[in-house]
């Protein structure tokens, strides 16, 4: 499969604090990469750094992002203009606040199409409107006149109107109810197959990720602790905790232990060993399955990846 996106040891910091710490991942054509993590684990930061739209105060401090052979971190403003909304587009979490309240939803899709230089933006917008199963009578509605699910469909329509290669969906269903969530997900799945889209799907709902993803990445405090395909067995204790998260996970992200030299998950890990406190786990690879935990060291199929050579 052709690689669409490859992120190599991407780091983002806010003053002294690392928001993203050496995150590496790859997305191939037609793949759905589900990025799972708690609030504050850096999911949205990762998504925004792909579009180079980090809020002021956050700075990229290392790593590289290659999108279809282009280094996004070195792209000029003009190149970014041709990538945003045309090659990579994004669907956001809270549809009601991501639509400008002053314009009709149809106009906002037309504008997206026009920004990409579509020859007939209006026609493209109407077509996109149909693709997300919205009745055309809502084309001239204002955002507040639509329900949350419909607003999210509008957001998806405007994200897909320019036929991007990669769709970033940043918790697109978090603000929606269960039934609407199902509808939006099946819509995304249908559109993905139709346009052979790659999707970076961000969620904090691991069971949902298991159903939807071709690959799952677990983000914990800015580190991608595990990435695996849903078919294989996960290894990292944090993934297990997330999956069975009947337990209260609150506070896992909040405590500050920047002095810790070992594993970032050490404090809360039910399977911690002495080694975990002293030495930061290496990344162990087995095919496409990568995990950052000493547990994998004992498994024969995994081989350690030397971090220092990672960039080579």
């Amino acid at each position, binding site marked *: 499969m052709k690689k669409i996106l490859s992120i190599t040891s991407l780091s983002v910091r806010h003053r002294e604090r690392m928001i993203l710490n050496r995150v590496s991942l790859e997305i191939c054509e037609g793949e759905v990469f589900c990025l799972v993590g708690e609030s504050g684990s850096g999911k949205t930061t990762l998504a925004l750094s792909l*579009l180079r739209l980090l809020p002021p105060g956050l700075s990229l401090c290392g790593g590289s992002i290659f999108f279809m052979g282009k280094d996004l971190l070195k792209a000029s403003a003009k190149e970014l203009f041709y990538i945003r909304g045309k090659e990579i587009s994004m669907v956001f979490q809270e549809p009601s606040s991501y639509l400008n309240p002053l314009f009709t939803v149809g106009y906002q899709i037309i*504008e997206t199409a026009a920004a*990409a230089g579509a020859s007939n933006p209006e026609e493209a917008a109407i077509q996109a409107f149909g693709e997300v199963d919205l009745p055309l009578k809502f084309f001239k509605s204002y955002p507040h006149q639509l329900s949350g699910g419909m607003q999210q469909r509008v957001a998806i329509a405007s994200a897909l109107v320019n036929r991007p290669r990669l769709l970033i969906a940043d918790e697109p269903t978090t603000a929606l109810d269960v039934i609407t969530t199902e509808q939006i997900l099946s819509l995304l799945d249908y559109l993905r197959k139709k346009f052979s889209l790659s999707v970076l799907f961000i969620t904090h709902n691991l069971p949902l990720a298991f159903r939807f993803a071709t690959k799952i990445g677990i983000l914990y405090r800015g580190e991608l602790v595990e990435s695996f395909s849903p078919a294989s067995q996960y290894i990292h204790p944090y993934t297990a905790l997330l999956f069975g998260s009947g337990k209260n996970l609150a506070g896992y992200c909040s405590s500050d232990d920047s002095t810790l030299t070992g594993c970032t998950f050490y404090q809360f890990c039910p399977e911690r060993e002495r080694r975990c406190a002293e030495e930061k786990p290496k990344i162990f690879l087995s095919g496409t399955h990568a995990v950052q935990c000493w547990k994998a060291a004992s498994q024969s199929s995994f081989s350690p990846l030397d971090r220092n050579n990672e960039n080579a």
Partner: protein
Amino acid sequence: MKIFLTRLNACGFFAAAGFWSLVALYLIALCADLLIPYPYDLQMRDRAFHPPIRIHIMEKGQVRIPFVYQSTLIDPVGKKYQEDTSQRYPIRLFAQGVERKMFGFWKTDRYLFGVSEPAGIHLLGTDMYGRDIFSRIVCGGRISLSISLIGVILSFSFGMLTGGISGYFGGVIDQIMMRATEILMVFPSFYLMLSLRAIFPLSLSSVQIYLLIVVILSFIGWAGLARIIRGMVLSIREEEYVLAARSVGVSHWRILFFHILPNTFSYAITAVTLAVPGYIVGEAALSLLGIGIQEPYPSWGNILASTVGNLRILSDAPWMLLPGLAIFFVLVNFNLLGDALRSVFDPKNW
């Protein structure tokens, strides 16, 4: 337009009344030359300080076409007039009068209404030179209403532009622009207005003075607005739909002008309509001090100005204060309209 009117009507009676009154006022100002019974600068010295004329419809128990009587001056010092009831002077449409130029090019001696001499139809009385106050107020409305409208448009475009750029781009641009506006704001606006006027010579043509006043008034008005718009833009640019717009590759200028500034309209439009009165009063203040619109051209300000310092006018000829009523009427209507426009331009109310 139709949508606008439906929404306006939905805002209640006073909103619609305010809007239509203003439309009527601007129409009157536009067609001022058609409506007046006398040229605004025609002096009738024998009829100085004539009180508003009485229009009769009954004579000896009989209903007649509305008519007036000739007034004769019985007390030249106290300016007392008495009606001479021996002859009726009916009010005629398209009456003949002094020849004048309508709209600056069309010579005619016809007036929409009038009475034949020696009677006079002074609906709102006359001033000390015997000029018809009604004609002067109607013609003065042209200046007062247009100065306020043009001035407000100029200063608001400038204020929105400055505030928008300053708030959106931030950094050094913001610092420079905001310090500049602050310099402008530290001067009390009235003295700034006076000193700006003082830069220019006193003897200018009336058109020059008119333009000068527009520019002075708009120069003073934009700073406060720019500050507020900047603050609003600062908060709106953090809105998620701005991020969304950037994520689909909309350019900065387009985001500023099409996504951010329209979101300040609900405030700005209200502020515009509430600022219009300030411009009318500003013009009146300049004229009042004799450095605004010069006689014989009327403006509401300089009609009022002629009463200043003359207590006798206040007691004996109170109709000279009627331009004040006109200003008041415009202000009330603009306030009503401003309130209504805020909800008309808010999509949440549609």
